[in-house]
């Protein structure tokens, strides 16, 4: 096996374009994936047509809220481009200078202040389906956020008014009399007055008023709490169910390294075995008995070569990325185990592909065609698709090594679940499975 290994290393060293492709392509893919996962989406360019007079306010519960503040919350979610008119906004959309436009109408303040009609803003879209989806979701989120902020201001104003009614005094509510008596003080005052009244119809009337005042004060106080709950009805408390929470940036590193490891190992193993067949050497090497090299030895050599090359590249990537992203170097022993197991499993998948293909180009195409969707499927989160589709994706991901390698590396780098041991065993079983399939593929020669 060592002579074949030496031969393959010589051939690899002489295939500079192949080596450059195998190194540059996965790194480029890895960087793109890493950037895509770790960076939040860019802000879309949106034209803002603010038709409201400058400094206009909306009166809510006797308090003044600036319209500009509402608009600023929308501006914050996008890259705003101020335009003077709706017509100009439409022209900018059609020319592709902006993806969308938000028109804040002149009468928004009056409509909200009326208390009987909704204020509304107009949103204009253009672009392809993906761009529309992106800008629509960002604007919807921004508008929802602004609405929440606005409703909180209303809730605060309403709560202030209720407090003034309950507590009395010099309330800062528009139209309130000075040193006003609070609703909560009325029952006690009435009780004092009733105590000095002789029995009779008037005393009974006063007792009924006192009972009502007590009831009203208690329920109005409860309403204040209800208003606070309406302001933020559901609070979110995050708890990871399994293992440690993986930071997005280090998970992106794990994804990038796993993708690179897969590409290098699968392509090298598939191409290496297909090259033996393409150059018609396979029959010469395997003929016997006794064979110059056993079929198992030949497959093992290809897997070993691919795994070793992928291992070196992936480790170099981890070390390189470690300069920019905080990685726990104390776990380096686990990294090595994960990379080795992943490399062997990907190498085994590669030889299975190589045993099916009759030439290097076909093997490379097959390897690319299989590896790309595997990586894509393994990254589909549960809940993003229907149950049935997710179950199918999970089954596919289970019988191919990418997801297991990703989990092994995530466990090794981030301490995520499932643990490294489980993933490593999974990878080794998959290695045996694909090596056996490759062995069957080689038997076609006999």
């Amino acid at each position, binding site marked *: 096996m060592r*002579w*074949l290994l030496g*031969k393959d290393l*010589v*051939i690899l060293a*002489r*295939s500079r374009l192949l080596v450059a492709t195998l190194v540059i392509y996965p790194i480029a893919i890895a960087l793109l994936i890493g950037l895509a996962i770790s960076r939040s989406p860019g802000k879309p360019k949106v034209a803002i047509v603010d038709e409201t007079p400058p400094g206009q306010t909306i009166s809510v519960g006797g308090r003044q809220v600036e319209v500009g503040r509402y608009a600023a919350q929308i501006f914050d979610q996008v890259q705003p481009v101020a335009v003077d008119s709706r017509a100009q906004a439409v022209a900018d959309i059609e020319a592709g200078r902006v993806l969308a436009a938000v028109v804040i109408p002149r009468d928004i303040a009056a409509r909200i202040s009326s208390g009987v009609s909704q204020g509304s803003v107009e949103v204009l879209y253009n672009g392809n389906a993906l761009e529309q989806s992106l800008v629509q979701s960002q604007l919807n989120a921004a508008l929802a956020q602004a609405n929440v902020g606005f409703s909180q201001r209303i809730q605060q104003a309403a709560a202030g008014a209720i407090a003034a009614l309950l507590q009395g005094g010099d309330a800062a509510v528009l139209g309130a009399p000075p040193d006003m008596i609070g609703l909560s003080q009325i029952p006690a005052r009435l009780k004092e007055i009733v105590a000095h009244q002789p029995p009779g119809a008037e005393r009974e009337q006063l007792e009924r008023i006192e009972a009502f005042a007590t009831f009203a004060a208690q329920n109005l106080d409860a309403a204040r709490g209800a208003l606070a709950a309406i302001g933020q009805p559901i609070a979110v408390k995050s708890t990871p169910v399994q293992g440690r929470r993986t930071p997005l940036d280090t998970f992106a590193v794990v994804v990038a390294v796993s993708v690179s490891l897969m590409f290098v190992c699968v392509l090298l193993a598939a191409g290496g075995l297909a090259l033996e067949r393409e*150059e*018609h*050497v396979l*029959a*010469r*090497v395997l*003929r*016997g*008995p*006794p064979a*110059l*090299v056993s079929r198992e030895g030949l497959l093992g050599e290809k897997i070993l070569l691919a795994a070793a090359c992928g291992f070196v590249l992936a480790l170099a990537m981890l070390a390189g990325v470690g300069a920019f992203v905080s990685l726990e170097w104390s776990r380096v022993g686990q990294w090595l185990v994960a990379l080795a197991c992943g490399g062997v499993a990907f190498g085994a998948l590669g030889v299975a592909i190589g045993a099916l293909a009759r030439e290097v180009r076909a093997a490379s195409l097959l390897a690319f065609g299989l590896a790309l969707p595997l990586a894509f499927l393994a990254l589909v989160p549960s809940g993003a698709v229907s149950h049935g589709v997710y179950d199918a994706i999970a089954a596919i991901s289970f019988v191919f090594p990418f997801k297991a390698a990703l989990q092994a590396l995530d466990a090794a780098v981030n301490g995520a679940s499932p643990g490294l041991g489980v993933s490593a065993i999974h990878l080794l079983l998959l290695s045996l499975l694909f090596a056996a399939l490759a062995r069957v593929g080689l038997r076609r*020669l*006999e």
Partner: protein
Amino acid sequence: MSAGAQAPVIVAEGLSKRFGEREALRGVGLRVSAGELVAIVGPNGAGKTTLLSILAGVQRPSAGTVSGAGAGRAAGWAPQQPALYGRLSVAENLRLFARLEGLADPAGAVARMLAQTGLQERADERVERLSGGNRQRVNVALGLIAEPPALALDEPTSALDPGQRERLWEFVGGLARAGTAVLFSTHHLGEVRHHATRAIVLADGELLFDDTPARLIEQTGGERDFEGAFVAFLKARGH
């Protein structure tokens, strides 16, 4: 069936090979002695490549046995399309297979084969840059590197020009004179008449004739060349 006077270096008995429903070889038997130059001829699909690849250990027969003079493979193997690593040099290819064969002196074997094939000056040249004739020489040299008592050549001259063919036959003739039994398949029937000491005719997987080329001409009577005799022979047997 004729056989050389010397002890056989290959004995094949009752060889059959089945690919699914198709029977490529049907009970073929032959004995080949050292120094014989045996041509295997027949129409396309007759089973020539199958027979040679079974004798060289590339394929296993569905039935029958092959035994050789030594303990290892019965024959060296040079397939129709050169089985070489294009990105390795001539010497690197020879050295690799000398090592895979487990030869005690790989460097000596490489030097011997370079000298025998006349490729010393091309030793460090990558195989992918060689001419078709020189590639075929390296291909044959790899089949000979372990000094097998017999060599199986599958259509060795099919991609060569007349000059290259002539040089290859000089080389192969030298091997036979040195005692190596050479079995080759070919569609160039003139080569059989000029170079082979024995001709085996296969058709539909059956061995129809095994004797000298001159005997085949005699059997068909009236034919002046081997090609005419071969065609007449097959026609007489319904092929």
